């Protein structure tokens, strides 16, 4: 069973690249293969020109970090915010972990009063801010974002997306953003790849998407469906396998 087949993409430094598709399209698997969480891949993955092997090195994680979809599952329930944030710093032997924790809390819009709280004392949006701060602890250059706002209310989603945009600007980050939501991808990204059944069906710029110029019928269908319910359009829906 191939979750992903023959996917090729190149992301430029400083760019935000979107991967969009429905469940089972393979979009998260691509991200997990890059992060080293999906082991059984073949092909070539290179970060900053350096080919990745089967195992990720410590240096890799100083360049690439990931933020997961579910902030309820991605934080250790028995670790305080301080424990969660300082762990990567200690593993990688950072000198000024304490100061970094405080600085990061401020950067993601949480005050120092959050430092010794547990995840259950935080809202979903606050947890996602902690997860973002953890990803930034090692000052990575590339952030892999797997549906970072799909578990959040829309008003909280807006806050988190704004936060990510600001952090990208301030730190010169590169994003690869996976989402099922075309409007989130359009807001955040410069270019995107549309995936279906494990393959990339089309790569296009967000400008092309906004001008409703996708060339593949699957992308056109996805775009139309994302604009809202239309009874007449439902009967025209096709299945793409």
């Amino acid at each position: 069973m191939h979750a992903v087949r023959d996917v090729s993409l190149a992301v430029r430094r400083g760019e935000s690249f979107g991967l969009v598709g429905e469940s089972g399209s393979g979009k998260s698997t691509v991200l997990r293969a890059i992060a080293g969480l999906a082991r059984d891949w073949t092909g070539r993955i290179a970060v900053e020109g350096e080919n990745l092997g089967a195992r990720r090195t410590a240096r890799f994680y100083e360049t690439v970090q990931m933020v997961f979809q579910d902030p309820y599952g991605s934080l250790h329930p028995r670790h305080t915010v301080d424990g969660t944030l300082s762990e990567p710093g200690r593993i990688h032997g950072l000198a000024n972990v304490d100061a970094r924790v405080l600085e990061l809390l401020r950067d993601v819009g949480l005050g120092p009063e959050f430092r010794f709280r547990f995840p259950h004392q935080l809202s979903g949006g606050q947890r996602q801010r902690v997860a973002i701060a953890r990803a930034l602890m090692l000052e990575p250059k590339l952030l892999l974002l797997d549906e970072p706002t799909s578990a959040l209310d829309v008003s909280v989603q807006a806050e988190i997306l704004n936060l990510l945009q600001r952090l990208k600007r301030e730190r010169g980050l590169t994003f690869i953003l996976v989402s099922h939501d075309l409007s989130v991808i359009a807001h955040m990204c410069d270019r995107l790849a549309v995936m279906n059944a494990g393959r990339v069906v089309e790569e296009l710029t967000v400008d092309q998407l906004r001008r409703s110029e996708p060339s593949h019928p699957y992308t056109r269908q996805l775009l139309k469906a994302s604009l809202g319910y239309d009874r007449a359009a439902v009967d025209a829906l096709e299945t793409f396998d």
Partner: protein
Amino acid sequence: MSGPLLEVDGLSVRFPTRTGIVEAVRNISFSVGREKVGIVGESGSGKTMTGRAVLGLIRPPGVVQARRMMFDGIDLLSLSERQLRSIRGNRIAMVMQDPKFSLNPVMTVGRQIAEAYRVHTAASSSEAKRRTLEMLEAVRIRDPERVYGAYPHEVSGGMGQRIMIAMMLIPDPDLLIADEPTSALDVTVQMQVLAIVDDLVSRRGMGLMFISHDLNLVASFCDRVVIMYAGQIVETCRASELHAATHPYTRGLLASLPRVDRPTERLSTLVRDEAWKTEPGVDARIL
């Protein structure tokens, strides 16, 4: 009789907790006719509790209070648990958000749906099977015979949700309460499932209470919208006029949505006003 299918007047739902009483729903009034009414709000707004209260599904220590709760001439507040059971699932059905937790994992899909049918009718088992296969086909399941004999773990999430909808619709309810029925589905499957429900409303005159957090979807799918905040109804309008909503909460929610057709540098964020909680709510009844 004329009048709405469902009329709710002054509904409150409270839960006592260690730190005091939580008012999940505060004195709300609304009605549902043979139409699609969207109940929109963020998590904690009370929208799910409103749906559950109508069906009598709030368990102690939760307390439900209302001045009036009428369904097709029946006073829901005066019914015994036994009488309520004859209405629940039969005349008022509810589709929950996640099929994973709503289907019986050790019973085939077909038997579950057929059981739902036989509980409410005097149908024979062969008649129930025939109706079940018809219903599976109606919710666009391509191979109904195969799915009939499948267990819930053998079907995808999208199919599971369609199975749930088939089960809820087989007794031919007058009112369907759908709590985020499609939020776990892919957008194309979501549209197909909504079309099934839409057709039932327009062809059979079913009433629909559609509970959702998705403003764009509700605006394009429903006839009317009720917006809930902190347990109250803060605004109500025709779905087609949602973009012209006036309450700052509704406006804030709409503005915080990213849109493919309208690029912005920065999304506007919602600034919540404490005063919204003490404002008198809006009556969303059409009598």
